[in-house]
């Protein structure tokens, strides 16, 4: 026998899970929502999705090159960021603005902090907030669904949350199916739930954050006199709770931490919606909880097996 044996530390087996496979699962889970986006808001949304994904991947590639680090576009995380950002944009947004969002997400938030796993806030959400602050009007110009079939020029509509402020309501069925104004990927509750179920079934995410987030919005909006069913199905609650708040890097790892994180997101969302001068608070709530994540994590880290409490202070 020739002496070319591999010497490596144990374990010598692996479960076969890879970052790429996880990201692929997230992409698959977002397919229904992306299809719904195209159905309701037309080819413009398909273009937005394409532009965002492409620019995120290209930007990541360039960043890694410039920083002289290993190319990581193969792990598909840039695709996920691009897709999520696109789904968080209004249908009529100028694609150049979307590219600006991608720069914020990939270059500033992700790569400048060291790449995947090192950013302290969610790239897509941060990009959305930066866009919202930089371009307040285009970022809040909504379209009615199916308008793209009727006219060449888009007719502006309003989101259900804005309509409520004007005293109009949207039916639960329309909310559930996504037949309402809003960001291209956030409207179809049905599609988002399908994606969420897929992610939980594939064990990519734990259901704790989505359930506690949505549950908190439901209970708190009810207690404060709102319509709980309406609140959980409108705005970005579903998209945020299932896909954005569950981002590994910026949410706590252990179950108790996840619960606190989810409840925190829910509380802040409802408070912003009902009391602040903003119609929607999902993005802000998630980014705030992102920032608190390291602290939640420190406070909720499980006690190691057989470690005595008094020892902890030693």
């Amino acid at each position, binding site marked *: 026998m020739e002496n070319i044996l591999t010497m490596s530390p144990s*374990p010598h087996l692996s479960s076969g899970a890879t970052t790429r496979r996880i990201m692929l699962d997230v992409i698959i889970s977002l397919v229904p929502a992306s299809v719904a986006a195209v159905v309701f808001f037309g080819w413009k949304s398909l273009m937005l999705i394409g532009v965002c994904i492409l620019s995120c991947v290209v930007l990541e590639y360039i960043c890694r090159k410039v920083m002289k680090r290993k190319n990581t576009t193969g792990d598909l995380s840039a695709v996920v960021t691009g897709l999520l950002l696109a789904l968080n944009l209004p249908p009529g947004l100028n694609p150049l603005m979307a590219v600006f969002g991608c720069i914020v997400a990939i270059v500033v938030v992700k790569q400048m902090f060291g790449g995947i796993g090192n950013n302290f806030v969610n790239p897509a959400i941060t990009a959305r907030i930066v866009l919202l602050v930089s371009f307040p009007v285009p970022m809040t110009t909504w379209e009615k669904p199916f308008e793209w079939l009727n006219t060449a020029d888009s007719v502006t509509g309003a989101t259900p949350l804005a309509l409520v402020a004007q005293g109009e309501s949207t039916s639960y069925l329309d909310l559930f199916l996504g037949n309402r104004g809003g960001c291209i990927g956030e409207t179809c509750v049905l599609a988002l739930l399908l994606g969420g179920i897929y992610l939980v079934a594939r064990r990519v995410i734990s259901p704790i954050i989505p359930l506690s987030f949505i549950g908190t919005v439901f209970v708190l909006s009810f207690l404060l006199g709102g319509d709980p069913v309406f609140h959980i199905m409108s705005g970005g609650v579903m998209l945020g709770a299932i896909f954005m708040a569950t981002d590994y890097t910026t949410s706590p790892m252990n179950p108790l931490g996840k619960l606190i994180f989810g409840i925190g997101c829910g509380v802040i969302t409802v408070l912003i919606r009902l009391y602040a001068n903003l119609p929607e608070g999902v993005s802000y709530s998630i980014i705030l909880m992102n920032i608190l994540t390291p602290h939640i994590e420190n406070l909720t880290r499980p006690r*190691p097996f057989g470690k005595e409490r008094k020892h902890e202070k030693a």
Partner: protein
Amino acid sequence: MGDKLKLALKPFRIRGTVKAPHRKHTAGCESVIMPPPDEVLICMSQHIGAPCKPTVKVGQQVFVGQIVGDSEAFVSAPVHSSVSGKVKKIETITMPNGSRVEAVRIESDGLMTPDESVRPPEINGREDFLRAVRSSGLVGLGGAGFPVHVKLSADKDKVDTLIINAAECEPYITADNREALENSWGVISGIKSVMELLDIDRVIIGVEDNKPEAIRALDEVCQAANRDMKGNVSVLPLKARYPYGAEKVIVKACTNRVILEGKLPADVGCIVMNIASVAFISSYLKTGMPLVSKRITVDGAAVANPQNVIVPIGTKIRDIIEFCGGYKEQPEKLLFGGPMMGLALPDDEMPLLKQNNAILALSKKEAKRLEPSDCIRCGRCASVCPMGLTPPTLAGYVKLKDTHGLLKNGIMVCMECGCCAFACPANRPIVQSMRLGKELVKNAGKKEGK
């Protein structure tokens, strides 16, 4: 009592664990006895504790079961010749972990003549028994190699439960399964001796439920044993997940007792013995033949005929593999033990040690591991860790060389089971970083001590 109660026994809850592939290809292979090889290499350190000093000289005639190395230390166990023949050389060899130890090379005459000192020990009570166990050279056969007499010497008043570890949670390995099937009466008679001599009245045999035949065989002998003595021996089917066979885990699963950091099973009233160890005690009490051979699993896609073999201790791996038909293809990795905790070997010149329970020659495909990438903080490692650790946090402290942070977050509790690295999608070398962390803590402790 009887049937119903036993079936109602359920293991207690364990956090974490992983679903490692079983790959118990050799579960149905009846053990084959390997004829003595041309030469054996008896290593002076086949246990945890003080290494032995050779007690024989070059050129001396030795017989099977004759002591060839011993030590004065309490935490140690003598080593015996596993063949009859002539001492050829006393040399220093390098162990897979890098340490260097003495070893006695014995050329076999092929006769396997037993030594005249080999006769059943006379046992009158606990002290005699412990002495006999020591001179039998028995060490924990499950892998750790802790001298068994030390374990059994635990304070008599504290210990109330004997746990027989037949979980065999490592993939591939089926030697304990064969022990249970081929030697169930030996197992129970060994258990009885330990119960009587150490005055223990509860015994739990933990077996993973992927071995229904072993469970049935053991259950049968347990019932027979319970009929003719007052004791309470039972089989507890454990979940077939890795690492149910780890000491702290099996104690928790069987008794719900938690061994505190830095403590031993005896501190919670338990003695844990491997099933092969307890079966060996029964045969030693009958024949007086010390530990000179053992049953191991030889498997892996690079081996021609995977099987269970009873091999003289000190046989070189090359000879064992040859006995199993040689290599089918160039092995990529050669392991002592299972794929989760086993040690990779540099070549096949190493002799078999007492505590080894498997030799795996993995093919390129089996041994494949991907390049590590950046941690994505997915938390899988933390959620599968049976010890409740959070590896990314600890890895951070390792980087900072912060021993205080490491200790606070339980680095010393890590048993290097490898669940974390198994589950990690980024293929982080987590276990390696844990080992590094433990080293840091130990070194810092030494400095402070001075």
